[in-house]
């Protein structure tokens, strides 16, 4: 406990059990706020939401066995999206390990493939040491989840805690952050020679808190900027040079620009297959500069010409300085700017407006933007609603958009919103939920009520697991299979049963006003918004196709 406090931990999400009873006993006297969640997965995602909103390490506790295995999805999610988190699990007593003891699960073994690192204590004196090491590893370099598994007898032992005086120094862990100066110089020169450059940015820019530095680089020659779904907000969507998101559900302007670019500068982005589509046809004309803090990301999916390993926050200003020093002629980019502008004019995001009060999902996102003045922290579940939000909300600031991209975990939104609200109590926090997703972790409404966490859930209720339905419609001959949600539950009643406020909106004319009302209402609110059931999310690049073959 003392070591956690020494690390500045103020909030912990979790559920107690036999194996972590001693830890929970210590919580009684600790000056920490423990948020008692209703399912360990919720606790794990709450820790993620907390970390993504604030940049601080999120912490979740679970007991041994089922408590620990319930955390697994959240741990995997944190790994995929590089979220700085520390998970502390109870374990059976040391002498029972390996005997299939009551509530024993080899959580260390189970999570090996998706932790940044993990520890199992074998001596009580290791516990504070491991805590400090975990808080060193989780947020530095490429962030990720660290697991500490503590057998019950060890967490029970009394030890003297001597506060750490030295910073943690691990022989096998020295992330390099500065970027190789020579490589940066070469990159600047390549950029100076480019005629069709694009800055392809990602979650790494958010993690690096390098929005300002990105804007500086982009401003050096008004370079066009696009971003993955993970990087939204790092570059303002209202900016003139903004192309919109790229990838499977990105804008045509962004994807066409990638397709025709002669130089792509990837910054904290990892060439995910939702971006590259068909690898052999990805950005066929381009050379690549890749700035990433994780050397293993370089040339993992796409062979890179100029790699720069380092922290975007440190590398970008150096690159901007080198570039400016070259004093290139900005007019060489005029034709490219004109081309991009033409794409933007010709292919804006668009949808057929609803008639007779029908609420189009895209309209719902636009209404949400107006009701929140474009400045809420928005968490999301996974599906069509997630992509519409990414397309239509227009994030202007980083850490305002919190979603599960890599693992794509349905049920992420509500617990993540809880975590974000705890981290940023002064901000409006909205969970944009899908009806298929929300039910997966709806138990956390009880947490919101009991712990007085006033998140607002705007449910995009299309009656379907819409994203899967869309694929069945488009690629499987409209043979719908297991995608209808049916009439259950009655969301308003469900919200009320939990002690939250439930509201429903079925008419586009009322929507913005109801959202405003939900935002003004004290405590947690669930607003059930009935949207067009079979709207498709366009444009899209069909799986395995190339960018120029976008449909819709």
């Amino acid at each position, binding site marked *: 406990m003392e070591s956690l406090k020494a690390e500045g931990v103020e909030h912990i999400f979790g559920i107690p059990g036999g194996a972590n009873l001693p830890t929970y006993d210590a919580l009684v006297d600790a000056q920490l706020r423990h948020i008692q969640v209703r399912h360990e997965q919720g606790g794990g995602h709450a820790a993620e939401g907390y970390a993504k909103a604030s940049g601080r390490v999120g912490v979740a506790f679970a007991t041994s066995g089922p408590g620990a295995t319930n955390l697994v999805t959240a741990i995997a999610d944190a790994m995929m999206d590089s979220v700085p988190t520390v998970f502390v699990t109870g374990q059976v007593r040391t002498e029972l390990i390996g005997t299939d003891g009551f509530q024993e699960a080899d959580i260390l073994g189970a999570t090996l493939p998706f932790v940044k690192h993990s520890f*199992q204590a074998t001596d009580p004196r290791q516990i504070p040491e491991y805590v400090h090491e975990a808080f060193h590893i989780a947020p530095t370099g490429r962030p990720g989840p660290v697991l500490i598994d503590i057998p019950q007898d060890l967490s029970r032992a009394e030890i003297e805690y001597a506060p750490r005086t030295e910073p943690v120094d*691990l*022989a096998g862990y020295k992330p390099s952050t500065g970027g190789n100066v020579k*490589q940066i110089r070469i990159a600047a020169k390549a950029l100076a*020679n480019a005629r069709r450059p694009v800055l392809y940015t990602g979650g790494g820019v958010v993690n690096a808190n390098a929005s300002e530095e990105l804007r500086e680089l982009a401003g050096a020659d008004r370079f066009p900027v696009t971003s993955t779904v993970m990087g939204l907000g790092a570059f303002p969507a209202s900016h003139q040079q903004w192309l919109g998101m790229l990838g499977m559900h990105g804008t045509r302007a962004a994807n066409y620009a990638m397709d025709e670019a002669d130089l792509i500068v990837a910054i904290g982005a990892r060439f995910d297959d939702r971006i590259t589509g068909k690898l052999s046809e990805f950005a066929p004309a381009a050379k690549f500069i890749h700035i990433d803090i994780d*050397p293993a990301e*370089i040339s*993992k999916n796409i062979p*890179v010409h100029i790699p720069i390993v380092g922290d975007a926050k440190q590398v970008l200003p150096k690159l901007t300085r080198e570039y400016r020093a070259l004093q290139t002629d900005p007019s060489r980019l005029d034709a490219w700017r004109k081309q991009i502008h033409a794409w933007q004019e010709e292919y804006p995001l668009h949808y057929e407006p609803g008639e007779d009060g029908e609420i189009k999902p895209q309209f719902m996102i636009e209404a949400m933007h107006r009701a929140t003045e474009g400045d809420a922290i928005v968490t999301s579940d996974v599906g069509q609603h997630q992509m519409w939000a990414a397309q239509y909300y227009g994030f202007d600031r980083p850490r305002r958009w919190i979603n599960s991209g890599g693992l794509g975990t349905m049920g992420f939104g509500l617990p993540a919103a809880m975590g974000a609200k705890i981290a940023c109590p002064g901000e409006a926090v909205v969970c944009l939920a899908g009806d298929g997703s929300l039910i997966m972790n709806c138990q956390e409404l009880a947490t919101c009520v009991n712990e007085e966490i006033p998140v607002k859930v705007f449910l995009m209720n299309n009656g379907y697991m819409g994203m899967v339905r869309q694929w069945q419609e488009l690629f499987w001959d409209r043979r719908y299979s297991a995608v209808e949600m049916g009439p259950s539950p009655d969301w308003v009643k469900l919200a009320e049963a939990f002690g939250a406020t439930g509201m429903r909106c079925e008419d586009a004319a009322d929507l913005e006003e109801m959202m405003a009302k939900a935002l003004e209402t004290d405590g947690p609110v669930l607003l059930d918004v009935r949207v067009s059931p079979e709207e498709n999310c366009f444009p899209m690049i069909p799986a395995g196709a190339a960018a120029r073959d976008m449909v819709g």
Partner: protein
Amino acid sequence: MCSVVGVMMEAGTPELVKLEELRVPGQLSGRKHILSILVENKPGVLARIAGLFARRGFNIDTLAVGPTDDPDISRVTLTLDGAVHPIGQVTKQLHKLINVLKIRDMEPEETVAREMAMFKVSSAVENRAEIIQFAEIFRAKIIDVSRRTMTIEVTGSAEKIEAFERMIRPHGLIEMVRTGEIAIVRGSA
């Protein structure tokens, strides 16, 4: 520490880097690699390495683990095929394991590599002399003899052991045990 792959061109000249001239190096070397990996002697380290290989679809050909002169550090020596695995990617992934301290992709010319193997062969009276002769040629040792079998210890490069195996197999190979290669850099390094 992080191996940076990519263009290796001099900065400065020419004044601007011409995009057409940028190249990426090939990812596959086409030869066998011996990786010598120093790891912290902590529980689960081997599971982390093995798990990483399994998950990323890297195939280990041989694997040998043992102590070093420092009791806190162990050495893992493994061989894998650079014709199918991008070795750069393999070593970078290994480096991400916190308990991995140092990785050396051993250069063939600078490296002495050895492996030990034991062969149990059936030895009737009539071929016993021939087997002993093979053993002598290969500077192998006969370490056990029974009425119907002989056990032979061979030390050498993987190629030598494979050559011995080819010779002995027709005589009725009952069982073979190999340690996997270990390697050390030659004197001057």
